[in-house]
């Protein structure tokens, strides 16, 4: 029986009349990267803020690391790390000054503080940058500093709010390697993202839309249980084909990817390729073939775009 680090039941957050999070249930196990995938405004950040005690839920119960939130939020803060969406350390302080400040705030002192700062600077390649002003560093460097500051006090649980939205793909890949290192060391991680490739790296994801959880599971399982097959069509007049297909019985969604049209066909249709070939609209198509589903297909079937 794996240990549960986050448990939330019937979580609701209302801002006046608008429900940012609407009846969210969550169970997150220790030692995994749990991702919230969803478009902007889907309630990812709000949900995360309720888990760390920054926002008080309108309704529902939250328990993080065995502590009731927001009641015990201050005790919890020693045990969790948080990386904000935008860089929020001090731009007019150097790397070392920022790390010293954060370490002291988290109650580290003396030898222990020096040792931990040395460790994280080593691990996140900040040693050579230690006298640089944080405000003058590149996006990737800043992100490494933010991660270093968030794990200084060795939190059991790490919250990352869209951690890679301001960095290049190379830094992003590197960053995820570092996250897996942390998981190996026993840290659990909760991350929000709107990048499919990033969500695919998570152990488990929750697809969020309009404050509600549309799907929850391992990316692979979600793809398997998607309820639709994916067929790609090649040929001329793809825009016309798309217009014809959209809204037709048995078609979930259709989107163009370069020279191909990617069509999601409901899985109660036994032969999706044959089904499409039989359509008049695809008469001019040069190729119709079934392909492997990806997470974006899962996202489309799970959210509004696929449920029109």
């Amino acid at each position, binding site marked *: 029986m794996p240990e549960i680090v986050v448990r939330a039941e019937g979580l609701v957050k209302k801002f006046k009349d608008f429900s940012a999070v609407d009846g969210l249930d969550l169970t997150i196990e220790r030692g995994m990267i749990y991702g919230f995938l969803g478009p902007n405004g889907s309630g990812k950040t709000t949900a995360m803020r309720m888990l760390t005690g*920054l926002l008080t839920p309108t309704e529902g119960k939250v328990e993080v690391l065995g502590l009731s939130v927001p009641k015990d939020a*201050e005790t919890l803060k020693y045990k969790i790390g948080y990386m*904000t969406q935008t860089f*929020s350390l*001090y731009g*007019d*302080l150097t790397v070392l000054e920022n790390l*010293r400040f954060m370490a002291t705030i988290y109650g580290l002192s003396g030898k222990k503080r020096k040792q931990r700062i040395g460790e994280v600077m080593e691990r996140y390649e900040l040693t050579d940058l230690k006298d640089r002003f944080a405000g003058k560093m590149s996006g990737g460097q800043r992100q490494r500093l933010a991660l270093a500051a968030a794990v200084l006090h060795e939190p059991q649980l790490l919250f990352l709010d869209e951690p890679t939205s301001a960095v290049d793909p190379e830094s992003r890949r590197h960053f995820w390697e570092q996250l897996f290192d942390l998981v190996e060391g026993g840290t659990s991680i909760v991350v929000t993202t709107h990048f499919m490739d990033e969500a695919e790296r998570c152990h488990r994801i929750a697809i969020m839309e309009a404050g509600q959880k549309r799907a929850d599971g391992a990316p692979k399982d979600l793809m398997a249980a998607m309820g639709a097959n994916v067929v790609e069509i090649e040929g001329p007049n793809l825009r016309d084909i798309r217009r014809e297909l959209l809204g037709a019985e048995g078609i979930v969604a259709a989107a163009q990817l370069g020279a191909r049209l990617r069509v999601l066909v409901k899985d109660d249709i036994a032969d999706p390729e044959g089904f499409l070939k039989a359509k008049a609209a695809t008469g001019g198509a040069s190729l119709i073939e079934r392909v492997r589903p990806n997470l974006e297909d899962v996202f489309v079937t799970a959210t509004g775009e696929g449920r029109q």
Partner: protein
Amino acid sequence: MRPLSRIAAIFFKELAQLRRDRMTFGMVIMIPLIQLILFGYAINTNIRDIPIAVVDQDQTAISRILIQMVEATRVVEVTERYTSVEEAEAAIKSARVRAAFILPDDLSQRIVRSPATGFGTPPSTDEETSRPVAQWIVDGSDTMIAGAIKGLRNMPLAELFRKAPNRSTPTFEVALFFNPEQRTAVNIVPGLVGIILTMTMIMFTSAAIVRERERGNMEMLINTPVRPMELMIGKIIPYIFIGLLQTAIILGLGYLLFNVPLGFRPFDLLAGTLLFIGASLSLGLVLSTIAQTQLQATQMTVFLLVPSILLSGFMFPYEGMPVIAQYIAEALPATHFMRMVRGFVLRDAGLLDMYRDVLWMCGFFVLGLAVAAFRFKKRLD
């Protein structure tokens, strides 16, 4: 020891940020320096050389001597001469002069009969002899100017006849303590400490929390275990030193340039100044928890600064204000500091003599800090 080390961490962080903000650091020194020199020289309530116009309808030797006598007082300076009263009135209207001195054509007769010449006081019922010798038309909108000219009303005229002026015995004897030469700077310089500290202390701290919010550091800070009180205290300590530095600049230069006494109570002065700095800083922190942007924080500072200048007794005597305004003034830390600092440096008073203001100041400090820490929420909703 966590609270102490956290306060220290915030203190050193603020210090590092302040040191790198050259502009702000420069203002810390330049504001008291320039304002002291400016106000020390500029503000003067002993009015001299008011520009006036003369309308001499008499045109005799005696009228010319009278004009010279008036000029010799140094209160006024004749800059215009007109032949008609209408021209003089127009000149006052257009602010070329602030007053007009009108000498009638029967000046000689009036002078001879005037009691001011010292030939004996005629009975007051006698209209012919109780007439003034000449008239002043004054721009009375500025009460200070009007007051200065009114001071000329009872000028003795015996000199006109080469007679020694009447030895008039004053009804009351007035002994001027603490500032016998009546130099305005003696009153202005210690008060300036209160005004400049109000301005810089409230402005710095009111921006302190807001800046964290505006630059996006706040979301990170409230995710740490830092307590509101630790944050507040850590943030105000650097500014205490700045406040003391500014006080030293103002009082030190006031002594060197304007010969304003420093008193003999360095301990009381230090303690009183620290109290005032504390009160202003905690007030600034309260504003900081209300304001959402640095611009709003600055606006609120100005909102407090203007009454602090006008109502605190810095420019106008507290006693001259209506009771309601006095109540408002009591609610401003600057009012109490104004009394205290003038007491310490000018009147050789001590903390005990000024205990009421000391208590007020302590109240401001504790209340401000408590309200700020209470209002500072570690939540976003």
